[in-house]
């Protein structure tokens, strides 16, 4: 067991390194850097000026060295010029003595996430506030999605082929067929527009960042939850129908245990093992939904910052966002692997 966790964590770290390296290379490709130089310097720079600007700011080094510095395992670059010493770990130009005082390593491992050119603040600060917003959104999404998906799945799966099963299955197929940008648009059209006239909710969630209420926060939560719900419900249904055909359920029925008792006490626990993994593996897709919903409802969270960073060529912020999302995805995968072993007695004993 310990060995398994150790090995999985090792693989996870290697995966994280590979992925961050890929993102690093893609964001630091020359055209991106050229654009950065032109936005930071001036738009009519000649090619030589761009090259010298990049060189002066440490972008001219080999890719692996840059990646090491960004990660914080290679000493940050320093450069002596007429104005003084500039460097990765130094703000502005300083004298040589001060430069010697500055820390040698400053990457994400040291907690230095860089500076966002879009928001003009430290990346770590943005990540903190935005991630907080999204975390709050996700919390409500999970609170809404998981129980309702499980209930739908269990109700549909307990009597295979019944009316409940068929209608709930159709319902879950419908929700999986409706991506967030479709359901979100339909919800906004039906519940917020003046044309339909219901006006039950607000079409934007901007005010929900300070003061989340049912009125301004329910639609974004529902939009994300609905898309993920169908899939989890279908998986729960599949696992429930499988459990309901097992021998021990038949034995229980023959003993005369009542149907609700069979479902709640005998079947439910075993039927919930598979959905647990599915819920955990839904996180990469939830992230997808978060980006769509946050731009649709103008909720300034993590996904919204991703869109902003990507469309404004904000390299450091984009990198930080990728790191966070990759780590979240990998962590949930690890938890799902370990949780599966804990939940499933057959695997645990062998």
């Amino acid at each position, binding site marked *: 067991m310990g060995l398994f966790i150790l090995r999985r964590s090792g*693989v996870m770290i290697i995966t994280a390194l590979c992925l961050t390296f890929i993102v690093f290379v893609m964001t630091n490709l020359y055209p991106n850097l050229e654009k950065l130089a032109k936005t930071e310097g001036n738009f009519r720079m000649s090619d030589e000026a761009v090259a010298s600007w990049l060189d002066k700011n440490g972008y001219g080094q080999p890719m692996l060295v840059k990646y090491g510095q960004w990660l914080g395992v290679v000493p940050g670059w320093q450069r002596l010029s007429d104005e003084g010493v500039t460097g990765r770990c130094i703000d502005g130009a300083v004298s040589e003595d001060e430069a010697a005082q500055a820390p040698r390593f400053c990457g994400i491992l040291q907690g230095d996430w860089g500076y966002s050119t879009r928001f003009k603040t430290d990346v770590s600060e943005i990540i903190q506030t935005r991630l907080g917003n999204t975390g709050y959104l996700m919390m409500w999404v999970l609170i809404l999605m998981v129980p309702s998906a499980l209930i739908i799945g269990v109700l549909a799966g307990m009597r295979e082929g019944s009316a409940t099963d068929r209608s709930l299955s159709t319902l879950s197929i419908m929700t999986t067929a409706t991506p967030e940008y479709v359901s979100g648009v339909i919800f906004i059209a039906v519940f*917020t527009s*003046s*044309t339909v006239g219901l006006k039950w909710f607000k079409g934007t969630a901007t005010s929900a960042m300070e003061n989340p209420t049912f009125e301004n926060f329910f639609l974004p939560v529902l939009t994300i939850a609905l898309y993920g719900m169908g899939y989890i419900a279908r998986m729960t249904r599949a696992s429930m129908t499988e459990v309901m055909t097992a021998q021990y359920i038949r034995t229980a029925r023959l003993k005369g245990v009542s149907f609700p008792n069979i479902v709640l006490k005998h079947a439910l626990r075993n039927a919930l093992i598979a959905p647990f993994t599915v819920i955990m593996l839904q996180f990469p897709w939830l*992230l997808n939904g978060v980006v*769509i919903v946050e731009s649709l409802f103008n909720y300034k969270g993590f*996904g919204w910052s991703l869109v902003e960073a990507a469309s404004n060529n904000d390299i450091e912020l984009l990198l930080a966002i990728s790191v966070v999302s990759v780590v979240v995805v990998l962590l949930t995968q690890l938890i799902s692997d370990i949780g599966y072993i804990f939940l499933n007695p057959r695997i645990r004993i062998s």
Partner: protein
Amino acid sequence: MDPLTWTGSLAFITPIFMIALLLLAATIAIWVVVSIFSAGTRHVANADGTMSLAGNPQAMAALGVRLAFLAVAALGLAYLVMGLIMGTEAGIVGAMSRQMWPTWLALVTLFSLSILFKRRLGLYGKLFDSPIGMVGFTLVMFWVFTGVFAAMDLIATHDPLAQASGMKNKVPGTPLRGAEAGEYAWYLLGGDNLARDVFSRMVKGAWEVLKYAPLATLFAFMVGITLGLPAGYYGGKLDTFLSFLANLILAFPVILLFYLLVTPEIVATGLPQFMAVVLFAFPMVFCGVLIHSRFRTQPAKNTFWLLLVLGPIFLLYMSLINAQGSKIDFWPLDFFDIPGGVLVVFVSVVFVNSPTVFRIVRGLAMDIKTRDYVAAAQTRGERPWYIMLWEILPNVRGPLIVDFCLRIGYTTILLGTLGFFGLGLPPESPDWGSTINDGRKLLSIYLHPALPPAVALMSLVLGLNLLADGLREESLRD
């Protein structure tokens, strides 16, 4: 020209239709509630020794659902048929129905032929035994035919890119100001915020989806099968390595990948083209190995088939990856150029989908390789690739076909997401994602530009999901 109402002179049906819809909703609700609390039909032993099923609340509710559904379907059909006959007299619905006559014709022909010959058509014929599969198939074929005929300019009433003066954000059924002879006189589903016809954009958008989604899915399957079969069959180091790569891509948040790949800067570096070089090579490899493993012992036949199949594929492949004025520009026989934006969309969709297919194929291959017929082939001395492609692959076709349907739907959603964020596809393109994105900005005032593409996308994906469900049900039955 008067503005059109929704149902025109058929307005008298509308209240009946509404009642039928309400009834349907009510009976479904009752049916579901009843089936939770009652145990279903009972067997009753009659005095003469026969058995019958006792009628109970549940059966009655089911009958109610069936009747209400029939009423709704009949009335809906009435709208369409009357529309076909009366055209714009029957309002917007009728006009749309008339406009779509090629689709109806093709659908009716396809269905009558298929049902007539369904016993001879294998799995496809069995699809017509399952109601869910049939509904799904109808939805899918509706959009397929609409897309194809729209591409042939039979359905769209206007040019999807043309802007008409005074039609900005006009409601459905608004007559076109100063329509000339030969021009369609109404904007059936209204105008969008650039005064373009929403209806024409929606049907043209179907073609945009049809152009990319199935082909991208097919490519993803080629990649997944070509890598997944050896990974599952050989196992060991190859499997570990390929699975690691697949997990790497799967752990990548899709939307981030799109944002990284689909920017003009990345397109300028030629990265999508290099990815295309790798990804598009897989169909060639697949076909080559497929033929060679079969005809290895008959060199004459082998060469003939290889030349016949690989020749055209190779030419296509070279035209695909070779584009004038880009990083790869050396091949003289270039038939067509793919715009950089479209290529990168295509490549990234294939790239995102193939690891999942890889995992499915790998799992299936691992399962099948322990079967007796595989052992028999091994004893016969067949080569590994023959076993993989001609023994294992045909036996996993069921799950793969089902997944193919699901994955086309998923690809449609992905393409929509790309359009929604304005990535890759040209900004004027009528694809559904971009249209939804354009329409959502004024959504609280004007609903009509955003809703038709949203409903269209939803119904197509729903159809694909139902079709996959029906196929799974029918393929499990035998």
